[in-house]
């Protein structure tokens, strides 16, 4: 008998536009000791399914049909007080954003004690030692000291460990991990996932791992269910799913997952794979960065964000800047795009030193239109009060002086160029999907025909299938417009798809740089090797289709 069984679950949400069915007839089984992966893109209903079985749906959500059984208990009808006993003790959950899941003004040790005492796993006298044991269980070094830490004093990876400790404190039999590593660095992701996997085996728990990353699911789950639009479209062994996906959507997801050996076109569904443009960057340097230094005045002494880096971007070249959070890549890109001033160093752009013009004055500089940027967070980078048309038109109005019908025509031309349907131009950002916002962001950045475009993780928040489309769009645009890219990312596999040359940064310094293929195949620096090893490795595909597409 399975530990958890979900039969024909239906969940719907009341919204302003009527009822929306988020989950429409999902049936899943989790056996004792099994790890089930639920994979799907945003809006597929994967998180809603897990919230429904914990009975933690938002107030406008309702289970409209089906059965939820956990170890013989009907989770749909059981009393709320029983449910409270089950949560944490029997079924536990690891949340997406560890920082949001922790109470910011309570010491983490106390938060663990709360759970232990709620479920009578500890008394007042031994709560502290039990909490420390729970911290040690998730391999936190110096647990005694960490017991007294507040969440803001801990790194993202450390916070996620605390959340795991909280979830496992009462020895639950079923663990639900909802995107447990989103927002974590790739090496941290590996450490956290390894830890979860280890603890699951050690304690013989069952688990449901919910993720958008097929590669991650394949590596850590025995069985995978692929969800789309509130339904399970395919279910099966991780390896079988990769080797021979039966459903077209699974095929599309498998294709779109960046992996070793894939080309940017092979991420797309087979019927969309036109030959990739051949790009030959010229040898003439466009941007020459010399000994760039940025030092902030922090609370506890100076912070050296960038420690004297030098590199060159040639005309028409695409350079990848890779590193984990805090490595200085974002600081570097905001200096290069002239939103911040360096402490020292030169930024030679077509031979002129841009660092001589302060960032404050650069907005009205004639060279402003030469360097543009696509922002990481598509939601945050649009004024919520402006329509897409207004956002794309803003640089045109300010930097080119185009007005009236000319500007209108150019905006529509740009929308066509990035594949955004024209009717969407009159929508506000919150009315657009992630992929649509990414397109608007790209259209805005290329509106004034820049020579140099900085792409700051433009696909980090996107679903893989949308990411595949956006990456291909960027490749095509570069071929068509001859723009040079600086592609900033944490993901080497994505960078390799788009870049000729890769720079790896750590702690404000360049540790390694070189041609993309060479660097990926023979990484010289241990840190590069570590980054490559940490990326989830989906089973290698026997893929006849990819060679045909090249």
């Amino acid at each position, binding site marked *: 008998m399975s530990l958890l069984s979900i039969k024909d679950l239906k969940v719907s949400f009341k919204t*302003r*536009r009527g009822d929306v069915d988020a989950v429409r007839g999902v049936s899943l089984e989790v056996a004792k000791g099994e790890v089930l992966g639920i994979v799907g*893109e945003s809006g597929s209903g994967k998180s809603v399914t897990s919230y429904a079985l914990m009975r933690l749906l938002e107030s406008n959500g309702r289970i409209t049909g089906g059965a939820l059984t956990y170890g013989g208990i009907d989770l749909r009808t059981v009393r709320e007080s029983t449910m409270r006993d089950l949560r944490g003790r029997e079924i536990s959950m690891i949340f997406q954003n560890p920082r949001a899941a922790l109470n910011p003004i309570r010491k983490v040790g106390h938060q663990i004690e709360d759970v232990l005492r709620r479920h009578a796993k500890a008394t007042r006298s031994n709560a502290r030692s039990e909490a420390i044991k729970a911290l040690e269980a998730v391999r936190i070094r110096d647990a005694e000291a960490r017991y007294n830490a507040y969440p803001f004093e801990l790194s993202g990876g450390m916070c996620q460990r605390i959340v795991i400790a909280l979830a496992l404190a009462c020895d639950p039999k079923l663990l639900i991990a909802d995107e447990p590593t989103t927002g974590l660095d790739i090496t941290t992701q590996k450490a956290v996932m390894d830890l979860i996997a280890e603890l699951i085996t050690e304690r013989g728990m069952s688990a449901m791992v919910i993720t958008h990353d097929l590669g991650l699911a394949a590596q850590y789950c025995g069985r995978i269910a692929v969800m*789309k*639009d509130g339904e399970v479209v395919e279910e099966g062994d991780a390896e079988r799913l990769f080797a021979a996906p039966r459903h077209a*959507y699974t095929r*599309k997801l498998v294709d779109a997952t960046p992996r070793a050996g894939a080309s940017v076109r092979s991420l797309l569904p087979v019927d969309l794979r036109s030959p990739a443009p051949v790009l030959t960057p010229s040898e003439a340097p466009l941007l020459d960065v010399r000994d760039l230094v940025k030092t902030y005045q922090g609370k506890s002494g100076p912070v050296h964000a960038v420690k004297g880096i030098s590199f060159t971007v040639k005309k028409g070249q695409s350079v990848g800047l890779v590193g984990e959070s805090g490595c200085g890549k974002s600081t570097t890109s*905001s200096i290069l*795009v002239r*939103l911040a001033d360096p402490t020292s160093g030169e930024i030679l752009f077509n031979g002129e030193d841009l660092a001589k013009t302060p960032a*404050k004055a650069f*907005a*009205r500089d004639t060279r*402003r*239109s030469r360097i*543009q*940027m696509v*922002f*990481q*967070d598509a939601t*945050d*980078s*649009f*004024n*919520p*009060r402006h329509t897409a048309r207004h*956002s794309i038109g*803003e*640089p045109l*109005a*300010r*930097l080119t002086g185009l007005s009236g019908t000319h500007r209108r025509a150019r905006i529509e031309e740009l929308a066509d160029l990035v*594949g*955004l*349907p024209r*009717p*969407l131009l*009159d*929508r*506000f950002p*919150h*009315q657009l*999907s*992630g*992929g*649509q916002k990414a397109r608007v962001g790209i259209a*805005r*950045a290329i509106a004034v025909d820049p020579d140099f475009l900085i792409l700051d993780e433009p696909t980090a928040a996107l679903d893989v*299938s*949308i990411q595949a*489309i956006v990456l291909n769009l960027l490749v095509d645009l570069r071929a068509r417009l001859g723009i040079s890219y600086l592609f900033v990312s944490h993901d080497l596999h994505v960078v390799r798809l788009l870049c000729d040359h890769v720079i790896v940064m750590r702690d404000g310094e360049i540790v390694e740089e070189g041609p993309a293929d060479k660097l990926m195949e023979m990484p010289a620096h241990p840190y590069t090797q570590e980054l490559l090893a940490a990326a989830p490795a989906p089973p290698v595909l026997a893929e006849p289709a990819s060679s045909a597409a090249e």
Partner: protein
Amino acid sequence: MSDLAASTPKTDGALAHVVYVLRSNPVTLLAFSMFAVLLVAAILGPVLVPYDPLASNAALALQPPSFDHWFGTDNLGRDVFSRVIVAARLDLAISVAAVALSFLIGSVLGSIAGYWGGWLDAVLNRLFDTIMAFPLFVLAMGIVAALGNTVENIVYATAVINIPFYARLVRAEVNIRRDSGFAQAAKLAGNSDVRVLALHIFPNALPPMMVQVSLNLGWAILNAAGLSFIGLGVRPPTAEWGIMVAEGANFIVSGEWWLAIFPGFALMFAVFTFNLLGDGLRDIVDPRQRS
């Protein structure tokens, strides 16, 4: 599963959005209806009323409410109903002018403090703290007494004591958006700091400001009426709710309750309206409420 599905949902127009906000929340609809009543009284009051609000008639002094005089007459025989209606214009004008003034000044000062920070922020904040350290009504009394006993000075006094509330709110709203992606994108589009602040960041502070404005309007009416009640600002025989309550208060003990009660109700009605109005106004100016 295309990201390009352009069919649903359709974008609402501005008017459709207002209709939606009014329909979805009956309280907002009620508030807007009450506000419409106030507006009609303020704009058309003198035309609508049955009697001249200033015409005295000693023969009809202190008549209780009747069919001819709905709210009765006062000690000089003036029709209380006409006076209450006509007073709406003056009371609304004072509060709207005062709130507009403090909104304007508060927004400018708050935006500067929130965007540039540093010593400007520190100096402005201490200034606002100083103003707020006074009992505000007493400060308003002081200002009117010092500047002179006129309607304009009531407006200035009410505005000054309200500035810190707006400035602080705007400062916080501007500050959290100072380094946001869209502010940076606006700079990349060639906007100077002042333009980024005025055209991109500040408009995003409007939704919470609307709540403040509406609550403040009610409060400003009370403040103006309060000043008149103690004899500052508006002078008899001008019809004004505060003065009417003050004059009527003398007659309550002798049983002529209608002199003070009806202008008091008018005051309550106005303040209640503005307090209810806030949420609806916020939903209307917030584009994110549209779908």
